[in-house]
């Protein structure tokens, strides 16, 4: 068995996600919060990685992630995405459902144009 130090950052992410998915299958539902889970993954892996974690919700679990990654953002719907906004650094951050925002065309294009966050 490889020591954890010998694993790459991406491999560690896969190991953690496997633990979470397994825990959701064999035990009570798991609530998982993960800050930018896509950081160390290759582009071709991001979509299926996030989808696998989201499937935990089918068994009553919850997966809450923050991300700027287009592939991750696209794996959520307008009703399962919260936009975090604050006017200045002195004011509190306010979460609002993406479905409350109107945007034209592709979501990622709208985010790049700063139509939603900006």
């Amino acid at each position: 068995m490889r020591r954890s130090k010998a694993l790459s950052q991406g491999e560690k992410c896969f190991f953690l996600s496997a633990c979470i998915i397994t825990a959701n299958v064999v035990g009570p539902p798991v609530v998982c919060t993960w800050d930018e889970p896509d950081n160390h993954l290759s582009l071709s892996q991001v979509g299926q990685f996030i989808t696998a974690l989201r499937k935990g919700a089918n068994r009553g679990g919850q997966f809450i992630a923050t991300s700027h990654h287009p592939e991750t953002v696209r794996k959520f719907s307008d009703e399962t995405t919260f936009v975090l906004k604050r006017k200045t650094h002195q004011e509190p951050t306010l979460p609002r459902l993406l479905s409350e925002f109107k945007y034209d065309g592709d979501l990622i294009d709208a985010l790049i144009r700063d139509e939603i966050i900006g």
Partner: protein
Amino acid sequence: MYPPHIFVIPGDDANRQLAGGFILHDQVDARRVDVKTPARGWRHVLEIFTDVYIKILVQHRQDHVVMLIDFDGDYDARRAEFEKAIPEDLKSRGFVVGPKQNPEILTNKLGKSLERIGLSLAHDCFSGPDSVWGHEQLGHNDADLKRPVEVVRPILFDVQP
């Protein structure tokens, strides 16, 4: 060996959310389904298919492409455009499906989010009955769907019902 893949080209963001809900079904093997960036309307879906995916289908004989579009009340004409563009020898691996009008009408009529509708569509495909596929906004896909569902089912689902 390169495993078989199903590429989904959504016509717009609403179709992307439908497809996203579909792959959340527990039995769908999400490693085999790749939902691509939404095109900007059905004409772009067709362009992407002809420019990019015909070559992929020729190269990888186990791959399939599903084009998910809005028919905007123009089913016969739009379907004919796709039939014309899909080469004869790839018709068994290139499919076009979508709501009669657009997915937003489906959300209003079914009272569910696009993602939840996608999940229900996967459930119908996996174990039936066709409660959502049979909706009047989707029923026109019946004839077109029997073939692709049978073809992609072994790739799509990691266990069989």
